[in-house]
């Protein structure tokens, strides 16, 4: 017997026959087909009990009510909360992507301390005692005013705790970032006296005259504005948009009237002149006019004649006249100030001039009008316990009225008078104009503490970073603001335990005060932030706990309003952009891109058109009429007095000739592959121009040159 070819044939046939009548073939075929349909490496979210938690979003000043869908306690989706008085079930793209911030790659996961140029993790106790030691030194030297603090807003109890801390510590140098709320408050203060702010009843107004307000581009409380704009057709309400470019809002408006950038205040004053000349102002409301109304009238007639303003603004005289008259004759007219989102660099003159239109037509504190109301003061903080050091510090002059004024002052001086800076939930080293000068000034301050959830540009220049829980991980009162008609305080509640070693900012402030001891400790007697909130918001606490929000003002303010024209009667100077170049570069707000804290989520950045950002390259809008020698989509170098940048051009007939539009919110420089490293930060190219009346940067743009790269 020998093994030959036939033996192997037998072996093979036997194996095939044996397998064929075993279940291997049928079973493996089935399993393989299943395998190809359910790749085992594809993650499958675990199933479980579905629950919903109500909370409030504090990603932007919109303060929408949210409902978080959870599976077995794990949050999986953010939706708008039905019946919430601000957004009534609506949500924006940033809100619905809010969960991504929990796991954001740039989150600060533990307290960090900078040693040489590197951050090293430290415990909360070490970080707090380090901060308390440096602060304690200032009080020992009896120079508490050498502490400055920058917060994102002055509303709510966390901002209240910082204010309380600064008062107990003894420093008047508490500053807030410029947002729509602060600009409206400044305008209201200028025209109606301190302690006032403005709200706009856009849900009922029948004629909205918007001076560049991006009603569907993120202005005010975005979702409330979306709804108001969307409901306009049913109400037969008109929206007229003055803006240098065809924004989404301009495209949705009944009429888009292009206006040369930076001339909106002149336009508004010319329209005031028309109303006064035609006697179209409301006599009843005019009884409250004071402080130089006659001077104001004479000034606008003399300095802002329609023909001259038509040349300046690019808006034909007949359109100015017609629009002003239509505005005055409307039943419920509202004029809106605040270009784009209405935050950042804006002009007090412009806000005041636009709001003067509201005052002249007298649709104030009426349905569908402008609400001039007292600042909502639902928080009742006890008076801080101050020692002699604190009293001396508080008596010292405030260093500046705005962050940019402060940093300019530091940069001009040899050595910074400020020794310690605390920054809460703000990113001035990115979101203000010419951020490199802000960074330079910050570097001159010996010790900086950043209360931040993310390792952003400002956190990176800090010496200690105290990681703050995100809005989904902490409790906080969230008052409505930024031009919203009503006054609602929502209660944000933790819907998930902190993902990392983070704490509530309120707790961090209380703990620093406790560590300082003495009168600071006495001023902060609360067990923790929640106990503090319950005490200081006692008047609305039951509502907050029971329904998640409290309505403070309903339906609208009733107190009489007086209007002081002194500021405008002096005809303050209109801000001119820096530089001598041919074009005017203006920043553009895009609803898909955030411009302050936090930076956009990965989801949000994916919604942005590839005519704005494509890969790492960003586009600037330019009208083809003034783009001779350039190629659509080609690379160019933009040059401004503040710097230069390589970008691509997007030929766009929707932008005025001579104007270049560049989106805000790109060009981040921190460790986040989804958001950072894309495009250029337009603020890097804009030189700030401090407006005399407000002490705040009012550079609406900058002069720019463009050349093929």
């Amino acid at each position, binding site marked *: 017997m020998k093994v*030959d070819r036939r033996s192997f044939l*037998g072996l093979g046939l036997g194996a095939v026959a044996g397998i064929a009548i075993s279940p291997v073939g049928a079973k493996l075929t089935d399993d393989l087909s299943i395998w190809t*349909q359910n790749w085992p490496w594809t993650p499958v979210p675990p199933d479980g009990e579905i629950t919903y938690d109500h909370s409030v979003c504090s990603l932007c000043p919109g303060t929408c009510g949210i409902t978080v869908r959870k599976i077995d306690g794990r949050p999986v989706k953010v939706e708008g909360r039905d019946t919430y008085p601000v957004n009534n079930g609506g949500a924006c793209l940033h809100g619905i992507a809010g969960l991504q911030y929990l796991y954001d790659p740039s989150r600060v996961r533990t307290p960090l301390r900078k040693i040489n140029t590197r951050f090293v993790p430290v415990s909360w106790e070490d970080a707090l005692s380090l901060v308390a030691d440096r602060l304690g030194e200032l009080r020992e030297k009896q120079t508490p005013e050498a502490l400055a603090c920058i917060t994102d807003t002055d509303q709510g109890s966390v901002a209240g705790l910082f204010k309380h801390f600064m008062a107990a510590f003894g420093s008047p140098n508490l500053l807030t970032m410029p947002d729509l709320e602060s600009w409206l408050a400044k305008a209201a203060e200028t025209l109606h006296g301190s302690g006032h702010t403005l709200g706009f009843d856009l849900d009922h107004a029948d004629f909205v005259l918007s001076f560049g307000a991006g009603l569907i581009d993120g202005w005010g409380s975005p979702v409330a504005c979306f709804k108001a704009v969307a409901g306009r057709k049913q109400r037969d309400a008109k929206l007229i948009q003055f803006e240098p470019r065809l924004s989404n809002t301009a495209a949705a408006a009944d009429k888009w009237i292009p206006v040369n950038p930076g001339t909106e205040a002149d336009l508004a004053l010319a329209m005031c002149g028309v109303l006064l000349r035609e006697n179209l102002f409301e006599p009843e409301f005019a009884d409250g006019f004071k402080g130089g109304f006659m001077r104001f009238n004479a000034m606008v007639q003399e300095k802002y004649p329609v023909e001259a303003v038509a040349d300046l603004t690019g808006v034909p005289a007949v359109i100015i006249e017609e629009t002003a008259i239509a505005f005055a004759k409307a039943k419920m007219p509202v004029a809106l100030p605040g270009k784009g989102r209405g935050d950042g660099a804006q002009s007090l003159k412009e806000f005041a001039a636009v709001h003067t239109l509201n005052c002249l037509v007298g649709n104030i504190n009426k349905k569908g009008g402008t609400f001039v109301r007292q600042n909502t003061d639902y928080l009742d903080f006890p008076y801080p316990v101050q020692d002699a050091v604190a009293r001396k510090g508080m008596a010292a002059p405030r260093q500046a009225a705005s962050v940019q004024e402060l940093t300019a002052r530091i940069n001009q001086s040899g050595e910074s008078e400020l020794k310690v800076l605390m920054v809460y939930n703000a990113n001035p080293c990115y979101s203000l104009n010419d951020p490199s000068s802000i960074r330079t000034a910050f570097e001159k301050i010996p010790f900086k503490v950043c209360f931040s959830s993310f390792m952003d540009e400002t956190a990176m220049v800090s010496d200690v970073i105290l990681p703050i829980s995100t809005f989904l991980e902490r409790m906080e009162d969230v008052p409505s603001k930024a031009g919203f008609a009503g006054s609602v305080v929502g209660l944000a509640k933790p819907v998930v335990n902190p993902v990392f070693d983070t704490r509530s900012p309120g707790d961090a402030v209380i703990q620093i005060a406790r560590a300082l001891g003495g009168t600071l400790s006495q001023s902060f007697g609360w067990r923790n932030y929640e106990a503090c909130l319950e005490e200081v918001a006692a008047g609305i606490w039951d509502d907050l706990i029971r329904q998640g929000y409290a309505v403070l003002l309903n339906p609208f303010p009733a107190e009489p309003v007086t209007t002081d024209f002194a500021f405008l009667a002096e005809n303050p100077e209109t801000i001119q952009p820096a530089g001598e170049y041919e074009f005017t570069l203006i920043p553009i707000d895009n609803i898909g891109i955030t411009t302050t804290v936090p930076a956009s989520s990965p989801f949000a950045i994916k919604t942005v058109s590839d005519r704005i950002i494509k890969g790492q390259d960003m586009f600037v809008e330019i009208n083809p009429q003034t783009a001779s020698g350039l190629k659509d989509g080609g690379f160019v170098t933009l040059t401004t007095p503040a710097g230069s940048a390589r970008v691509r051009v997007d030929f766009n007939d929707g932008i005025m000739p001579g104007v270049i539009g560049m989106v805000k919110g790109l060009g981040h420089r921190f460790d986040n592959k989804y958001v950072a490293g894309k495009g250029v930060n337009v603020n890097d190219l804009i030189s700030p121009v401090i407006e005399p009346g407000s002490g705040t940067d009012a550079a609406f743009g900058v002069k720019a040159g463009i050349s093929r790269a």
Partner: protein
Amino acid sequence: MSEIENKTEHGSMDGATACAAGDPKNDTGLGLGVIFFIVAFLICFLSGWLLFPKLLYSKHEQPFNFDHVLHVEEAGSCDACHFLREDGTFSGIPKMVSCLECHTDEPMGDTPDELIFAREYVAKEREVPWFVYAKQPDCVFFSHAAHINAAGMDCKTCHGPIGETRTSRPYEENRLTGYSRDIWGKNIWGIKKNSWDRMKMNDCAKCHEQETGHKGYCFQCHK
């Protein structure tokens, strides 16, 4: 005879004998072939039936033994622990919070399983990582409420007499698909004797056809 002639003569003779089946002396190739065939057949056949299922499925013991009989006696019925939530979703395997309606971190009996439960899970506030025999893949939507409440089916029709078991059998997981073996059924050939022996799509469709007159549409289960 020349050498060439010699070879030719013998060569032709060799060919003739090789073709003659009756000559056992020269029948070496075919005989070995048959033997190889039979051996290979048997090895592959037996492997296919006996070894293949063992290789295809990995076995996992449950974290500890669970006595359904005892719990049914104490709790009353299946839905005491496996209940429908208010929103109609099915709670499935009970969470610790359900167990703690009766149990505490003090063992309720003296079985080693109870000890493991109390010490390793209750005391440490951990969920018990049970393996779920009847787990359908993520691509399948299944409503217990529709079958229990609307169709009036009992648990046993699909889950079998699991309520009558005193011990937890090992969970077997298909190494390729990750599915529980209960989906295909214990029988490797997929033969079922009872309604609960197998729970593949065709089993759903067959019952739906019998009960409703229609197999149902794709999107009813694959949403």
